């Protein structure tokens, strides 16, 4: 007989999630997995819809990163109709996108993942949240966090119409340009964003990197997996959120593949399991070997750590300085430590902020030519973008009228689904021994997935930013002998 430990609900992965842990007779972990109990079927009901409506339809997959879906869908439409947006439109999109990346990464750092470090991984649960963060860093800074979120989200709202579910993407362009007044106002916000990113990186340095216990935690074996990594890079192999080459490096950090969105089918496949509604992507040219890491397993990882590992550097100067420090501190490339994702994320926030400054200061962004309508007959359109949580693919096929006949979506978080399962299982195996379940286990397991995926917790940025977890420990007769909750 096995004992079963259920963690339910842990909140969402585009919805909800549940962790099951089974202990053997000796009280050690025999099996652990994450179940995603939800499916909504977008790939089916996309069929029959008009291509140009897809940016509005698909963004409702996620209300936390709708801008990522909206933009990726819009890029798939560029490809579908064979049009490049004019320079101003492209810059507006990139500016909007980098603003979104900046805002979303901050949200994660201050509201979701950050509290584990800023307040402490073993701090009382009631303090391990954004309020705890404010208590630790001071109210002034708390106000700063709220203020920069509000101002950057206002930019997205102005450009996109709605901030939750923007609407301005069109094949070959955007629906509205930028005025001179807006440019002036947003220059200031962009500069403030860079200052804020500096502040965040310094806080990370002071609070996390100067604390040996934290560094040991990051470098520990509990949160380590040697996998492949994937991310978008520009022609110089520098991190790019909006466009470029999809680059994959192997567990030693060597380039394994580099391809354009159009070729993704040659590189990625997805498996199905009966116990969850989520699929498990893997590298086709390595193959699926199950939930294991290493060079022979096609499991790959995306999101901030994946992007940094898959690149040769950051695209902006300040972010590059931190990138170098990142690898120096953590022992060279690639970094396999899942918790280092938090650091990678704040380095990316810096690149996003520097890009905001660069783009909004570009005089060309005011050019009124924001549409290219030289459409070819539509057939296939594939878009890729780096969502905050990883590489996102939208693939549409249509009839000659631009009505969808087929769709394929690989959503950012899904890329990491196999790795998340592995991380949970490993953390559980290493932390639960001989039936002893320490209360700290709760947060340690939370930390194993939180590093990947704010979509799990996509709404836990609500105060007090705590993922509710309950673990019930059953004896061999199925009776609850102990309940632990945070």
């Amino acid at each position, binding site marked *: 007989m096995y004992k079963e430990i259920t963690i339910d609900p842990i909140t969402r992965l585009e919805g909800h999630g549940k962790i099951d842990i089974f202990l053997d007779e000796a009280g050690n972990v025999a099996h652990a997995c994450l179940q995603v109990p939800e499916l909504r079927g977008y790939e089916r009901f996309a069929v029959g819809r008009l291509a140009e409506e897809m940016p509005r339809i698909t963004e409702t997959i996620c209300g936390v990163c709708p801008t990522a879906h909206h933009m990726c869908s819009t890029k798939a439409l560029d490809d579908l109709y064979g049009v490049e947006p004019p320079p101003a439109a492209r810059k507006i999109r990139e500016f909007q996108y980098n603003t979104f990346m900046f805002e979303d990464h901050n949200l994660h750092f201050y509201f979701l993942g950050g509290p584990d470090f800023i307040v402490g991984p073993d701090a009382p649960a009631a303090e391990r949240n954004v309020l705890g963060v404010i208590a630790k860093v001071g109210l002034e800074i708390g106000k700063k966090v709220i203020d920069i979120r509000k101002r950057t989200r206002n930019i997205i709202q102005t450009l996109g119409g709605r901030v939750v579910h923007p609407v301005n993407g069109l094949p070959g362009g955007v629906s509205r340009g930028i005025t001179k007044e807006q440019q002036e106002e947003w220059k200031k916000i962009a500069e403030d964003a860079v200052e804020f990113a500096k502040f965040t990186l310094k806080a990370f340095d002071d609070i996390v990197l100067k604390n040996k216990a934290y560094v040991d935690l990051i470098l520990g074996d509990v949160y380590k997996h040697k996998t492949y990594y994937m991310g978008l890079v520009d022609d110089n192999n520098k991190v790019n959120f909006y466009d470029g080459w999809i680059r994959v490096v192997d567990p030693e950090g060597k380039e394994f593949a580099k391809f354009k969105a159009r070729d993704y089918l040659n590189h990625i496949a997805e498996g199905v399991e009966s116990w969850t509604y989520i699929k498990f992507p893997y590298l086709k040219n390595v193959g699926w070997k199950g939930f294991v890491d290493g060079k022979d397993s096609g499991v790959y990882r995306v999101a901030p750590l994946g992007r940094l590992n898959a690149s040769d550097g950051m695209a902006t100067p300040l972010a590059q300085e931190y990138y170098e420090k990142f690898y120096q501190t953590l022992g060279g490339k690639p970094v396999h430590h899942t918790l280092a994702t938090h650091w990678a994320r704040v380095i990316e926030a810096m690149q996003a902020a520097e890009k905001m400054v660069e783009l909004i200061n570009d005089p060309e962004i005011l050019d009124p030519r924001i549409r290219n309508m030289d459409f070819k007959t539509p057939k296939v359109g594939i878009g890729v973008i780096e969502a905050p949580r990883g590489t996102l693919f939208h693939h549409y096929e249509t009839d000659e009228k631009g009505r969808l006949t087929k769709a394929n979506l690989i959503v950012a978080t899904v890329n990491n689904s196999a790795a998340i399962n592995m991380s949970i299982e490993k953390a559980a195996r290493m932390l639960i021994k001989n039936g002893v379940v320490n209360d700290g286990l709760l947060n340690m397991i939370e930390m194993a997935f939180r590093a990947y995926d704010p979509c799990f917790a996509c709404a836990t940025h609500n*105060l007090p930013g705590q993922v509710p977890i309950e673990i019930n420990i059953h004896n061999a007769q199925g009776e609850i002998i102990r309940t632990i909750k945070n």
Partner: protein
Amino acid sequence: MAKPKVAFYWCASCGGCEEAVVDLAEDILKVVEAVDIVLWPVALDFKYKDIEAMPDKSILVSFINGAIRNSEQEHIAKLLRQKSQLIVAFGACAHLGGIPGLANVANRKEIFETAYKLTHTTVNPKEIFPQLVTEIPQGKLTLPEFYDTVKSLDQTIEVDYYLPGCAPPPDLIMKGVQTLLSGNLPPKGTVIASEKALCETCPRNKTKPDKMVIKEIKRIHEVIADPEKCFLAEGIICVGPATRGGCGERCINANMPCRGCFGPTKEVIDQGAKFLSALASIIDANTDEEVQKITESIIDPIGLFYMYSLPTSILRRKQGV
């Protein structure tokens, strides 16, 4: 006096409604001060059995977002109905079925086959599909049942009020909360938004010609929409005439037409049918050929006229499958 108890819950939704609550910014503190939140799975520790143990009707109001897509969502919605005096359908999915409600063009079998078999990247030679119960050597793993049909909240439980929108704008959320806490309750079934159609408050209304006639229908990507002019007058489908106002014309401000996320106005049962009738009245066609040409250019009436409201329309769902 004890503070009124309030619950938040989400069903088949995207998290955007939760974001909208966070976008209340400083106002959220006023809400937190005024009420005692007893259930907010995304933010607070709770157990379903804590809610089960509460006396019936002990929660003043439960705000539920998302459509009903599976058995777990139905179960919790029913539990909250039992424990709450008032239920508010929060956002387009709970109100109308929302965009995930477009899944009613298909059934469970087709959705599963697409997701787990037919999509390009899926490799599934053994044709494995998610199962309600999976036996593993260590025990059993269970999943909630995925239903054939997406339902709005009021097709599952009795609903008292509606807060429309995808997502509802923060000012409307605040208005809704204040209205319900004031004790001065509006009539049951009220949609907390404008009573008028979007066109009435649309900044482009003034450019609408007295007698509107269109000769052709244009798709949004095929034209450069004049940022001042009524979309319909330009031949671009805008569901404003069949949609309740109160959204702040957010999409229109971005120079994009309305797709109806606030749902129909009070008198209207079927938003798509209402729009079709509005459209028919402005189409300028004299011959059968002209009529045919125009109707052929409406390629996807389901997606355009019922983008947010298919489950609550008279069409409901694909039949005979």
